[in-house]
């Protein structure tokens, strides 16, 4: 595999930074940890992505947006985007930058730890208070839950934690 053009992984990752979650425009697919692999062969690029949830209807949109973003690089000819299951996407793949972006959108980032009984806790995405209650473990999208903050009296959402231990 020889790279004859100035096409670098760096420039491709730069382009992927512009591919936002279609429903959360403050985080990119890189922030979410969905990008598993990028390979360059000549002027052809292949991007391997991990789906967050299998039934997520945004996957096809993300695929299309990824192709378009990489295609914009002048050196690129063919772009292929593939979804794979292994390794599985888990919520701990979301980067620190991703956590910042989620909070900015009013979504608490997924907790890193589970209690022994499998339950989990997040603080309010708006005021940071720990006095919150779970309203609905399911939410407006497959990957989110709905909570209520007793301190600032706001409804907020959280990214649902998922791990291979489940």
């Amino acid at each position, binding site marked *: 595999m020889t790279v004859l053009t100035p096409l670098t992984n760096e420039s491709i990752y730069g382009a992927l930074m512009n591919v936002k979650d279609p429903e959360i425009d403050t985080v990119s697919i890189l922030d979410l940890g969905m990008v598993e692999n990028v390979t360059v062969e000549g002027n052809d690029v292949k991007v391997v992505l991990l*789906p967050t*949830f*299998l*039934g*997520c*209807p945004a996957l096809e949109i993300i695929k299309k947006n990824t192709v378009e973003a990489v295609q914009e690089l002048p050196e690129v000819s063919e772009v292929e985007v593939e979804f794979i*299951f*292994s390794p*599985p*996407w*888990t919520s701990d793949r979301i980067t620190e930058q991703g956590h910042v972006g989620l909070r900015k959108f009013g979504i608490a980032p997924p907790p890193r730890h589970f209690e022994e009984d*499998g339950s989990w806790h997040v603080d309010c995405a708006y005021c940071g208070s720990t006095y919150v209650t779970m*309203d*609905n*473990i*399911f*939410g*407006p*999208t*497959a990957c989110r839950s*709905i909570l209520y903050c007793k301190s600032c009296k706001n409804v907020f959402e959280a990214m*649902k934690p*998922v*791990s*291979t231990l*489940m």
Partner: protein
Amino acid sequence: MTTHTEALKELLFQLADDDFLISYRGSEWLGLAPHIEEDVASSSITQDTMGHATMYYNLLEELGAGNADALAHLRPSAERRNSILAERVNGEGYYMETPIYDWAYAVVRNYFYTQAKRVKIDSLRESSYAPLAEGAVKVSMELHYHLMHWRTWFTQLLSSTDEAKERMNKAIQLVMEDFGDIFSYGQYKEAIESEGLIASEDELTKSWLAALTPVFASLGLEVPKIPVPTKNGRNGEHTEELDAAIATLSEVYRLDVEAVW
């Protein structure tokens, strides 16, 4: 003599059709659940489950069984491999008119089905077919939340009023009548069990009973017996309810099979 690939395809059709039909029945509940939070939750579960069916149909497509969308929409009932329980209507009436759906039945069906799916998925994580084992890991994470949801409804309603208990017990009876083929591999039993694709019917049945026993015990109940199936969906034997479901769910797809959605 059944080849390895044939046994694998049969198993995938059983898994795919089960999740496809139960999520179709779930989608009919949209807008009708007892309260708005439940509408959000059960439709989210239904969406996940439809995603699991899609994964299995895609695996079948990769094995040369045909286009995934066509497999989901165009196969007649005699070719379907889902369990009878997955195809049953939600209750009387049509959802576009005056549905008289039974929430107790929905809770019991989904809880028993999801627990059965749990033991299958746990076993599939060790499947000899790597793509299926990898998919099972992914399904497993989502299933965790589904099972917790239905178990909560199940225990709460059975710890509630006399009317709730009566309706739940009636629903348990109704669900169990159709439970005979849930762990059946039908005529491909030998081939599927000998390939290391998934645990045996007996092992899965035992795991399911073991998982439900403490929950039932905490409610002062005994886990009902799984009957011998009168109809076996794994062999393509189905009720008219499946024909009606296929006609409805494939209506738009059949209008223009070349359309891209």
